């Protein structure tokens, strides 16, 4: 490579679970950008790194693949940069990362990559595990056989990590190793539809495969499939010969891994351990996140007060305080929970346990239209649906992934908790349920169970309606257990949080601004009239400033666009026992469900989110028609059920759009969840009224 002349594209390529991402983290630290490959949810990480001699490399972390034969549409796109020489980020060099303890399967990808004509270097990672398993590799011999640079590394023990960077800056060699001769392609392209002359044999073959439909339709697809299987077989035969020359192995899985597996997949202990881990995660997400979340909330309210005092009263002040700051706090308050959650998930993933949890839960989840890998998103949903939906990316099967995304928001997230707590506290019931349970604890538990059951039932129903995607089997590697690496976990957590703030945060922020506009402005001049009226009342001493502010806030809400929407939807929500004022809360809850509490505070003129006062006012409210308390048992229960099941979260809608790349799914989810919520609330209301 000539220094400073051209930026080289270097790709890290390898099988899943070979420690490739850890090496990428080591090479780049936090200097990395995550972006989706166009049209997919496949993430590719990039980073620009420069050495002392001004060589700059654009380093890419391609998602883990077992071969360049795509198993799904998404994987096809993941391989695109390798298969399309016209790609604008076509690799100049490839660094293949391999699990040294499992060379055979890892070498398959190597033989394909080198046939594509790339200069290649080889990194045999996880060599410590290989040594422990009695695998010994003759590196020099391997270098000679392949004609390329080979180094042995271990991210865990730190072996040869200093040699990694030089390997990336140095251009690799083209390997002379050949084990497969592609069949003649002349019979497929008679006309010059595609000019194959500029490609090498194997590149040309891949282009023919990709254009199977142009070349000859269904019949050829079958032939091609057969041909690809043959190719893999030929390659493995050659790999066996290669390995016999360079590797001696006693081929034993570590005894300790076997012992842990016996417990982790045990019919009783397996589930017990899983539940225990769940318990720990939940406790941490809720308990530990509480402190930083309070700090953030207090920080924002201080900032809000500061701006209220500092800026002149008016639209601009309101925009800053109720729009911008409220929007920012909506994004930032989520961060502690997300970081803590991803911290645990990264440990589970890094240690190899997550694959075991998926293994023991796959059969159960299949009954609900999902698979073993859906468990993790569903658990995460109890904290917040946004990271939960982001974590469905590990689910290969499109149908099962879609169902998981669709049902996750039914799980009661932490934003619903304040709503439940407020409503449960004003329910006029006394005494115990079934004679033993405190009714408040019982109701709260019932709300969570309602969410879990609804999500599972929804899974069963959706699995009948969502079109079956091409079944590609459920193949899952169970990696060896290993101690998680602190630095890797840290980098994973922080880069996830960063991508949440930038990607979901942008949308949450914008939605907050729109909602601020809707609740601050109205279609008529009523607002002005009200303001004038209040101003005269203050002058005439009919109201003091505090009363006037509350009155104004209430009237503003009534005459705002949000208020009009509230009245507009009143006929729809009336059968559930809600009036237009609850309607306003339902709409403003779209920022985040906990906004319900604040909006009740405004409606009932409390002025601040003060549970005791809101509760008293709400309990005292009399329905003008029935002369009964407005918040009867029926209304409270119906409202809680509505909050549990309705899709009232703009951020979730946005994330579902981002993850499915189509408005169809979030729209369907919104409609289906709203209908479910409406029906369930209606039933509950009519049972208790």
């Amino acid at each position, binding site marked *: 490579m000539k220094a400073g002349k051209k930026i080289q594209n270097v790709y890290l390529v390898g099988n899943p679970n070979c420690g490739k991402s850890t090496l990428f983290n080591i090479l780049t630290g936090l200097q990395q950008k995550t972006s989706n490959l166009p049209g997919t949810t496949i993430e590719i990480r990039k980073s620009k790194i420069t050495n002392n001699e001004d060589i700059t490399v654009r380093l890419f972390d391609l998602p883990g693949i077992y071969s360049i034969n795509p198993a799904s549409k998404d994987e096809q796109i993941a391989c695109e940069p390798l298969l399309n020489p016209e790609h604008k980020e076509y690799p100049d060099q490839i660094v293949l990362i391999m699990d040294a*303890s*499992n060379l*055979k*399967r890892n070498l398959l990808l190597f033989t394909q990559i080198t046939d594509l004509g790339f200069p290649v270097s080889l990194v045999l990672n996880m060599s410590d595990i290989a040594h422990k398993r009695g695998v010994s590799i003759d590196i020099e011999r391997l270098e000679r056989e392949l004609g390329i640079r080979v180094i042995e590394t271990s991210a865990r023990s730190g072996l040869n990590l200093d040699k990694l960077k030089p390997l990336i800056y140095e251009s690799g060699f083209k390997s002379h190793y050949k084990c497969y001769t592609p069949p003649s392609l002349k019979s497929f392209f008679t006309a010059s539809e595609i000019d194959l002359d500029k490609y090498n044999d194997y590149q040309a073959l891949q282009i023919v495969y990709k254009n199977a439909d142009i070349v000859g339709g269904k019949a050829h697809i079958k032939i091609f499939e057969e041909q690809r299987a043959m190719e*893999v077989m030929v390659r493995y035969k050659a790999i066996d010969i290669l390995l016999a020359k360079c590797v001696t192995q006693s081929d034993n899985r570590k005894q300790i891994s076997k012992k842990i597996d016996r417990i982790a997949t*045990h019919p009783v202990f397996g589930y017990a351990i899983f539940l225990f881990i769940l318990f720990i995660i939940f406790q941490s997400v809720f308990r530990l996140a509480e402190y930083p979340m309070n700090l953030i909330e207090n920080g924002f309210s201080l900032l809000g007060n500061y701006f209220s005092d500092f800026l002149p009263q008016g639209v601009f002040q309101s925009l800053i305080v109720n729009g911008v700051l409220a929007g920012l706090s909506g994004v930032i308050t989520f961060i502690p929970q997300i970081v803590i959650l991803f911290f645990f998930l990264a440990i589970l993933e890094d240690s190899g346990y997550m694959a075991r949890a998926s*293994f023991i839960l*796959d059969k159960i989840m299949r009954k609900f239209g999902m698979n073993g890998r859906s468990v993790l998103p569903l658990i995460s949903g109890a904290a917040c649906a946004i990271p939960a939906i982001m974590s469905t990316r590990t689910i290969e099967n499109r149908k099962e992934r879609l169902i998981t995304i669709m049902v996750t928001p039914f799980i009661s997230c932490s934003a619903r908790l304040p709503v439940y707590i407020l409503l449960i506290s004003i329910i006029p019931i006394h005494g115990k349920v079934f004679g033993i349970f405190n009714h408040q604890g019982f109701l709260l538990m019932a709300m969570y169970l309602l969410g879990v059951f609804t999500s599972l039932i929804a899974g069963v129903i959706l699995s009948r309606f969502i079109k079956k995607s091409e079944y590609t089997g459920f193949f899952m*590697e*169970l990696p060896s257990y290993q101690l998680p690496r602190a630095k890797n976990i840290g980098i994973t957590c922080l880069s996830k949080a960063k991508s949440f703030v930038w990607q979901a945060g942008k949308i949450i922020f914008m939605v907050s601004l729109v909602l601020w506009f809707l609740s601050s402005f109205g279609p008529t001049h009523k607002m002005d009239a009200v303001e004038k009226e209040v101003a005269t009342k203050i002058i005439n001493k009919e109201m003091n400033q505090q009363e006037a502010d509350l009155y104004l806030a209430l009237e503003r809400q009534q005459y705002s666009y949000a208020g009009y929407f509230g009245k507009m939807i009143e006929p729809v929500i009336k059968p559930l026992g809600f009036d237009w004022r609850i309607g306003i809360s339902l709409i403003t809850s779209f920022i985040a469900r906990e906004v319900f509490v604040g909006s009740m505070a405004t409606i009932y003129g409390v002025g601040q989110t003060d549970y005791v006062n809101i509760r008293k006012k709400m309990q005292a409210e009399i329905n003008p028609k029935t002369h009964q308390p407005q918040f009867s048992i029926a209304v409270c229960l119906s409202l809680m059920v509505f909050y549990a099941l309705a899709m009232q979260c703009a951020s979730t809608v946005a994330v579902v759009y981002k993850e499915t790349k189509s408005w169809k799914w979030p729209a369907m989810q919104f409609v289906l969840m709203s209908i479910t919520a409406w029906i369930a609330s209606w039933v509950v209301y009519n049972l208790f009224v």
Partner: protein
Amino acid sequence: MRLTDLKKGQSAEIISFEKDDLKLRFYEMGCLPGEKVTIELIAPFGDPIAINISGYLLSLRKQDARHIKVRID
């Protein structure tokens, strides 16, 4: 016999695959005719299973694994 007929801990040699559209995936994952395979783990409720193939653990659903024909030597 089929791979799913084996008991936990039993080993066998892979002979062939019945289902054409999964053959390529099986091959890629190292499940080739002639390879030795051992049933390492069986999940509670009997499904999925985990096999030791060319030195690593691979989890397969029964519905997929039943297409693998094996021979005990």
